[in-house]
């Protein structure tokens, strides 16, 4: 007898309801990452419950940072229930599920081929191995493949701004991001991959899926096939999301707990639950031990390659200005998962996903591009949404400084006297002095008598910068009327978080 498809309490229906709920919640939380809506919302909740972020952070930083222990909310149920996260909670997985449903249309017979297990699905275990080995050495690159970070990044950097371009309802000012469309293309590419391989991302690439797969290989609750009832019709493969072979010995580590097979079985031979007396056997994780060791060894080479390429981790780079509260650069690279939450919450759009500015390791990590925005003096939102503590949360008082405690400095501004209007062209300006937010202002001026070309004399205010007061917020660069390459520009030197990227001798 076929199980009731439309039953309000069928597992499949419940899964559908939860998946819609969690995608909506994910989008809502991303939307709240904004000065006006953040209030008390835990905008980066999905990243904080991500076990891969937790594991990688533990390996790179040897600490469990605050809410990252929330990942146990996923890990412990996975031990009993299997990879339910992938079909019920993961917004990226659910998007792929929907995309597969829409994009992939095959005849019933072809679905059997489509949804049968293929050896390439092992790749995710090797990706996981490589990322974990890198993490163990202290190079965090999980952000490149972690599904939650990937979907957050794609939405924040490309899709939300693109939607706003059309509808103009999300932002007051259309944000722009470095290489934004590239991240969008990647996202769309993976979504379109469902046209050819159903849930290509989840089955083949997702390291979080691999991790949960390994954990779920001990789960008690899983899809059980009653060998007496089963007549080997293979109809269970029609809607199978994980390519986990429910028609034979189930690959429990691949099963995404979508529950489709239960309702596709005409004999009611499949059920989710504890083993029965006539349940079929299950297959272990299909990852070749030799390949795993090979991948691990290859990652050993990857690590020194990453570390020996020029990057912010080994060299002070002028353009690598990190958000306020960022850890020292090597530690920052250890923690940052490239999720872009800081870029969503930033009110001035100054935070940008670096391309190669910070080196290969720093791809898509946040840097300040003062041409686009500037660090708002009293704003500390980026630290409050960072899920991993790469940007530490702090109070406005800590950022702005008190008489006893110095303000947080992101870098130092430098005049380009060949481009500055008063310095080079005898034109009155000092916009930089007006907008300088510190008190007393880091930018000061001297009124000088200047001789014009025709010999006439003019009084002009000539600006100077006090590097001890400058906090590197970049508003001077942003508001400078010399628009293409500003006449005052901030570089990272003097940043509070570094003890080496300094220029002035002080105690």
């Amino acid at each position, binding site marked *: 007898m076929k199980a009731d498809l439309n039953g309000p309490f069928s597992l499949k229906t419940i899964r559908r309801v939860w998946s819609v709920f969690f995608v909506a919640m994910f989008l809502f939380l991303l939307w709240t990452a904004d*000065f*006006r809506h953040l209030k008390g919302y835990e905008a980066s909740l999905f990243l904080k419950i991500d076990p891969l972020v937790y594991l990688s952070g533990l390996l790179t930083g040897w600490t469990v940072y605050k809410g990252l222990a929330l990942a146990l909310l996923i890990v412990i149920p996975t031990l009993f229930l299997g990879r339910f996260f992938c079909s019920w909670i993961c917004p990226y997985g659910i998007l792929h599920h929907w995309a597969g449903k829409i994009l992939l249309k095959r005849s019933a017979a072809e679905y059997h081929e489509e949804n049968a297990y293929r050896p390439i699905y092992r790749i995710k275990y090797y990706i996981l191995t490589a990322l974990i080995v890198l993490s163990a050495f202290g190079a965090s690159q999980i952000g490149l493949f972690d599904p939650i970070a990937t979907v957050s990044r794609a939405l924040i950097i490309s899709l939300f701004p693109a939607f706003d371009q059309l509808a103009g309802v999300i932002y*007051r000012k259309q944000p722009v991001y470095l290489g934004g469309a590239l991240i969008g293309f990647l996202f769309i590419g993976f979504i379109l991959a469902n046209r050819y391989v159903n849930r290509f991302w989840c089955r083949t690439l997702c390291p979080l899926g691999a991790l949960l797969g390994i954990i779920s290989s001990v789960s008690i609750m899983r899809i059980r096939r009653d060998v007496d009832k089963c007549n080997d019709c293979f109809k269970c493969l029609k809607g199978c999301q994980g390519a986990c072979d429910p028609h034979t010995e189930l690959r429990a580590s691949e099963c995404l707990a979508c529950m489709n097979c239960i309702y596709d079985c005409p004999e009611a031979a499949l059920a989710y639950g504890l083993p029965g007396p006539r349940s079929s056997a299950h297959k272990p994780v299909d990852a070749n031990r030799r390949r795993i060791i090979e991948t691990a060894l290859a990652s050993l080479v990857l690590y020194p390659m990453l570390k020996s390429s020029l990057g912010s981790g080994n060299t002070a780079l002028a353009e690598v200005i990190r958000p306020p509260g960022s850890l020292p650069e090597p530690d920052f690279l250890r923690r940052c998962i490239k999720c872009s939450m800081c870029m969503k919450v930033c009110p001035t759009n100054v935070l940008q996903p670096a391309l190669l500015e910070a080196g290969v390791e720093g791809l898509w990590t946040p840097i300040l591009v003062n041409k686009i925005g500037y660090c708002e*003096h*009293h704003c500390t939102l980026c630290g409050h949404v960072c899920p991993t503590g790469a940007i530490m949360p702090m109070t406005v008082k800590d950022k702005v400084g008190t008489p006893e405690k110095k303000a947080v400095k992101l870098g130092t501004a430098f005049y380009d006297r060949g481009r500055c209007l008063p310095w080079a062209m005898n034109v*009155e300006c000092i916009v930089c*002095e007006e907008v300088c937010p510190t*008190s007393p202002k880091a930018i000061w001026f001297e009124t000088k008598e200047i001789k014009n070309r025709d010999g006439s004399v003019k009084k002009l205010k000539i600006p100077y910068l006090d590097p001890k007061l400058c906090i590197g917020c970049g508003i001077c660069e942003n508001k400078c009327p010399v*628009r293409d390459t500003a006449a005052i520009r901030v570089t990272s030197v003097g940043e509070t978080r570094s003890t080496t990227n300094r220029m002035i001798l002080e105690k």
Partner: protein
Amino acid sequence: MCKSDPPFNGELMPSKSKNVELYDRRKFLNRVAYACAGALGVSAITYMARSGEPVYRRPEKILTIPKFSVDAGAVYPRMAIVHGKDADRMVKAALEKLGGVEKFIKPGDRVLIKPNVAWDRAPEQAANTNPHVVAAIIKAIMPARPASVTVTDVSLNDPYRCFARSGIESAAKHAGAMVFIPGDGDFRTADLKGELLTQWPVTRAVFEADKIINAPVVKHHSLSGATLSQKNWYGMLGGRRNQLHQDIHTSIADLAQAFRPTLTVMDATRVLMRNGPNGGSLSDVSVFDTIIAGTDEVAIDAYSMGLLGLDPAGQTFMQMAEKRGLGVTRWKDIHHAEFTV
């Protein structure tokens, strides 16, 4: 072979249609005629759309800024200086002294209030107009039954933060006004008809208002000495307004000439004495507990400069404004009232 292909039927070049159509003369001539007509039509359209410009440009509509000023009559003072602690009572008393709010606001008017909300600063730091004063203005004009009251500014820092942290957003909303934060598409090109400033993007709120109340705050400013009511009009412009610094005195005079408000209510409750116009430290702020209201912006600015210890006659933009007939620098010469409530 693709699954959708028909089975191979033995022909070397399988054709989809078995019956190849043969042309007769009539059909041939018809087709030639259609082709010629089509070609002619396309040529005619391209001929009509020909232009020296490679891209079509919509002719831009250049607006002019209406004059909002109202003459209350010579009996009433042109400037009221009120000292006190309670902003509501001070503003109300000032407007009564100037002739009553009904002289300025007619029932059904759409009123625009332009405070200074340029900076992401707390009210105590005195970088923006005091929210109590903004609320007091709204409350004071409500009895005149305006159709709507809108508070707007083009902030220099992030506008959402400026309006929220200055306290002006909540103060205005509680007092019954709307808050308008202009976005990218909310500017219209207007001719300011100034000596230096001609065509500039101006917030559309100006063109949707019948009366404008200028609500600046007294602040120090390094380049122009002080930022007062005339310079407050800076916050109506979009575009590259930071270029205005290159000739700030002419710019201020041009702005004051272009925007003629119904009323000006200057906030001198807290005054930023140095490190202006954004301050940052409470030690930069002095408390004066004063409000100056009136219809002569130049006189109001001249009085306010005194609070900062500046000589109004020595400021170039004040001389320019006086020369253009915008007001009187020697504020003691005009009919004014000074009192405490």
